[in-house]
């Protein structure tokens, strides 16, 4: 201790200095610990987790606002507008604002009264599950201006109710081409998972209006356009602090279809008229279809499905009830079915060109070889009798005449040979007949540029096995029987085809064997400038000599023009000297021999010397092909080539196939 005065903390505190410093050290340690904690947390937030927080900060302040670009129009090949847009006044309900059932009910009641519609209808639209719950739901379209004024004036009576101007699709041509055009609607969860939508760039988002079927769907990426995007920065109160346009709006492309509106109208009218005629003749004729295609390009000029619907019905959303009515009780009655590509039917005799092709390709006969056309063909160990459609013995004939008179026996023999050599039952099992069918495009989709296409069915040994297992032995109980092949040779049995497949196969006869993909769209344009042409795709070529195709064409011409042609009656009085029509009738029996159950087919083309149109027609449960399907094709050709005399189809008096 230094002299008299204290010169440091030691003085007053005496010997307590060490204890004091120890206590201060404890305090200091606590401070150090708390600072270490702060630094660690700071390091975590600002260094380790910084990216996450940066992302959160961006989400806080950045909003992207999308515009709704004008959807492209759809035009026919001559520039006729098939689909365009118009503005409609719609009443919307915002479920975010009003979702309580008890509050909603009186509002809907008042709204229904104001709009003069049923409350149920509004409810059904409101509860449509296909629309985004975060956007106001449109419950009524094309609302009268007066009603709008009254709703706006009495806002307090209509909480959550809004008026929006919505663009909807409009169909200047009226009630035509519904199935091909398709319709639009809000994108659904399922749509978003579909690769077409999921892999698009820019990506689709919930709430987008997209094509749901037909070309609206298949070419949505072209039709949709690009929205303008504004990147806005908001403050905590949601006020816009800064806004910049990061993407300009591009309206959707106009889509030009191969469809010819005039031919389409003629085709639809002919089909409907043909159905009416068949019904008048006492047939049930519930449905039918026509597929009109250019034989070398695959361009689909017309496509008609019966029964059909007015596309405008689906333009502004549709009530559940209306939708049920469209779908009908079952597939057969569904108005939504796009039958040219979705109906699957046995082809009957129109299939004979395929059987002939299979036999010739495999060297069984040549097109000029003669085969007898007896009334009956006996085949197999059980000596089963396969009858021609007529009991008259037609003598020997080559390929062309076999088509003209549609001799079943000729084809039974080819079928028997195909079975004996390569069939699953009598032959080596290589199933060359089926292999050729597949080459000709059966058993798989044609690749047409709209979705939902059916593949049809090529029955074979494997299919027989599967169906046997699937049905516990009810079907194919004895495996593949030789008779199946024989039956198949005239397009009977379990073979199923679509009208589009038939058109493709007949196009191959005309274009030297090329199996082409039908396509509905020709090109995408913007401001009349072509942005993309959709090219014809050829899948493969059937390996037959031109001579074979020529003989087939000869036969098909005789079907219409020949003295014994099965479609002669259907074209009696038709100016074949001006427009040469060729084709093949088909009458596929389903189940029984009762002709009322037949599928009536006529696959034809014209002009025969330079084919521009392949026309595949079927009428279900409507008698013979030449009788009811032939006249439909006739009327179509009359319309196309300006030969129109009669406006209605009358059934041909010819009872032949």
């Amino acid at each position: 201790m230094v002299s008299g005065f204290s010169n440091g903390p030691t003085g007053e505190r005496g010997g307590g200095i060490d204890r004091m410093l120890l206590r201060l050290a404890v305090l200091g340690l606590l401070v150090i610990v708390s600072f270490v904690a702060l630094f660690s947390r700071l390091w975590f937030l600002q260094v380790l987790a910084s990216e996450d927080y940066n992302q959160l900060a961006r989400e806080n302040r950045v909003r992207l606002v999308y515009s709704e670009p004008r959807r492209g129009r759809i035009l026919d090949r001559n520039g006729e507008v098939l689909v365009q847009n118009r503005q409609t006044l719609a009443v919307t309900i915002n479920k975010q604002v009003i979702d309580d059932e008890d509050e909603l009910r009186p509002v809907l009641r008042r709204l229904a009264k104001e709009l003069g519609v049923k409350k149920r209808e509004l409810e059904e639209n409101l509860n449509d599950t296909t629309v985004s719950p975060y956007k106001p739901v449109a419950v009524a379209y094309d609302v009268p201006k007066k009603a709008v004024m009254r709703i706006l004036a009495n806002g307090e009576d209509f909480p959550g109710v809004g008026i929006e101007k919505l663009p909807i699709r409009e169909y200047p041509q009226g009630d035509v081409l519904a199935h091909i055009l398709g319709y639009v609607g809000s994108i659904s969860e399922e749509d978003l998972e579909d690769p077409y939508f999921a892999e698009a760039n820019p990506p689709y988002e919930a709430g987008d209006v997209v094509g749901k079927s037909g070309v609206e769907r298949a070419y949505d990426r072209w039709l949709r356009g690009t929205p303008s995007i504004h990147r806005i920065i908001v403050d905590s109160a949601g006020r816009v602090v800064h806004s910049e346009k990061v993407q300009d709006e591009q309206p959707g492309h106009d889509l030009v279809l191969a469809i010819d509106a005039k031919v389409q109208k003629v085709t639809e009218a002919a089909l409907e008229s043909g159905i009416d005629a068949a019904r008048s003749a006492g047939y049930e004729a519930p449905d039918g279809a026509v597929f009109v295609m250019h034989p070398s390009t695959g361009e689909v000029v017309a496509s008609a499905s019966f029964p059909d619907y007015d596309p405008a019905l689906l333009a502004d959303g549709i009530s559940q009830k209306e939708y049920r009515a469209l779908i009908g009780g079952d597939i057969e009655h569904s108005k939504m079915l796009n039958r040219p590509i979705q109906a699957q039917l046995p082809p009957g005799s129109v299939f004979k060109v395929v059987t002939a092709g299979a036999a010739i390709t495999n060297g069984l006969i040549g097109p000029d070889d003669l085969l007898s056309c007896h009334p009956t063909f006996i085949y197999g160990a059980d000596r089963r009798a396969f009858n021609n459609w007529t009991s008259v013995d037609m003598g020997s004939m080559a390929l062309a005449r076999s088509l003209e008179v549609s001799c079943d026996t000729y084809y039974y023999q080819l079928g028997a040979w195909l079975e004996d050599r390569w069939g699953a039952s009598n032959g080596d099992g290589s199933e060359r007949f089926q292999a050729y069918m597949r080459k000709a495009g059966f058993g798989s989709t044609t690749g047409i540029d709209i979705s939902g296409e059916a593949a049809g069915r090529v029955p074979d040994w494997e299919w027989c096995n599967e169906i046997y297992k699937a049905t516990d032995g009810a079907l194919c109980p004895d495996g593949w029987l030789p008779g199946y092949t024989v039956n198949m040779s005239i397009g009977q049995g379990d073979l199923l085809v679509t009208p589009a497949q038939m058109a493709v196969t007949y196009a191959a006869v005309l274009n030297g064997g090329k199996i082409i993909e039908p396509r509905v769209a020709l090109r995408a344009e913007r401001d009349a400038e072509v942005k993309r042409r959709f090219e014809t795709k050829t899948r493969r070529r059937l390996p037959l000599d031109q001579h074979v195709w020529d003989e087939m064409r000869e036969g098909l011409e005789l079907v219409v023009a020949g003295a014994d042609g099965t479609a002669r009656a259907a074209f009696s009085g038709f100016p074949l000297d001006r427009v040469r029509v060729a084709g093949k009738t088909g009458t596929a029996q389903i189940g029984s021999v009762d002709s009322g159950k037949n599928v009536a087919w006529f696959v034809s083309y014209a002009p025969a010397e330079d084919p521009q149109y392949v026309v595949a027609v079927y009428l279900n449960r409507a008698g013979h092909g030449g009788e009811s399907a032939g006249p439909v094709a006739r009327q179509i050709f009359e319309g196309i080539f300006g030969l129109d005399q009669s406006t209605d189809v009358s059934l041909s008096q010819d009872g032949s196939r």
Partner: protein
Amino acid sequence: MSLEGIFGEGVDRIGGEPIGARMARRAPIRHIDFSLLLATVLLALYGAAMIYTATAVKLERAGGDPNAFVTRQSLYILAGSVFMVLLVLFDYRHLKSFAPVVYGIMTILLIAVLTPLGEVRNGTQGWFDFGFFDVQPAELAKVVAIVAAGVYLGERKGDVRWTDVGMTLAIVGVPAVLIFVQPDLGTMMVFVAFTAGMLLIGGARLRHFAVLALTALVAVLAVFQAGLLKEYQIERLTSFLDPNPDIRTVGYNLTQSKIAIGSGGMRGKGIRSDDTQTSLDFVPEQHTDFIFTAVGEQLGFIGSATLLGLFALLIWRALRIAAMSRDMFGTLLAAGIASMWAFQVFLNVGMTMGIMPITGVPLPFMSYGGSSMVANFIAVGLLMNVHMRRFLRS
């Protein structure tokens, strides 16, 4: 390193010098703690700058004077500096005689603020509105309580018994309870912190702390059970424990605060006008209790660590002064102030980063507010005083 090495020299090593020279060397004016002064000034300026960045854009957007807050904060800093100078002019030991009077005035103010004379802000009745400026007595009460407790404990000279602990708790408890009923939970917690620090330095035993800790635990549980806290207070206190708080209500502050700090990253986003959490007003109370978020977002880890470094310097100087003080009173003043700052920094910064509950405690020298600024400058003045007069005789 010896403990003296850390806290400064306990013993004067110089001997044999002429008395006059020694006296001159020991003149208080020659012993200003420039490091402490530097830390204080830098913190206050740092705070003012951050207040400017956190408010200017918003004020301008609202059509006001962008300098409104920073101007006032500068005035508070000036006022604080005047108080600081006043507090070094006399020997701090004279405080022993003023202390009871000041303590009495403070108690009266804390009672008065609970009467209709006081103003309610954010649910807390804790302000006097003098028109041109407001006074928050709780802020000043912290320093007064430290002085009062220091006077009492200093007399014990390290020999602390149960009665002394009780007396200390009574001295600190009166203002603390008055503040608790405002209610200002955060400030009350600061009282608890510096009282504990002062008891530790003042000589309380381990058993005192053990019993006090237990009592505190029981008291806290009782407070929760008895429903003395309002629902929102409990939510605020516990929301930091919830990893996914409801961001629309209680968790909003915390979420936005963490986003601001976290998104600052290593180097910060800089002072920008239109795309920061700060400029877009996403952090509520940013210029007051959440000023740290402005530092974190705009200046990043570098700026935040620098700020914490300045606080570390400040607290280290206070602890050093505690060790160097010539008497127990001075040591206790310095230790109390160091505890107060350390806890407030930990509570406030910890709150903005989600490791401490959300309580309305300002960040010393940084947060906008006059009473807090003046009280902290007074605390610096007291530390200076103790430091400058450590060689003077009693």
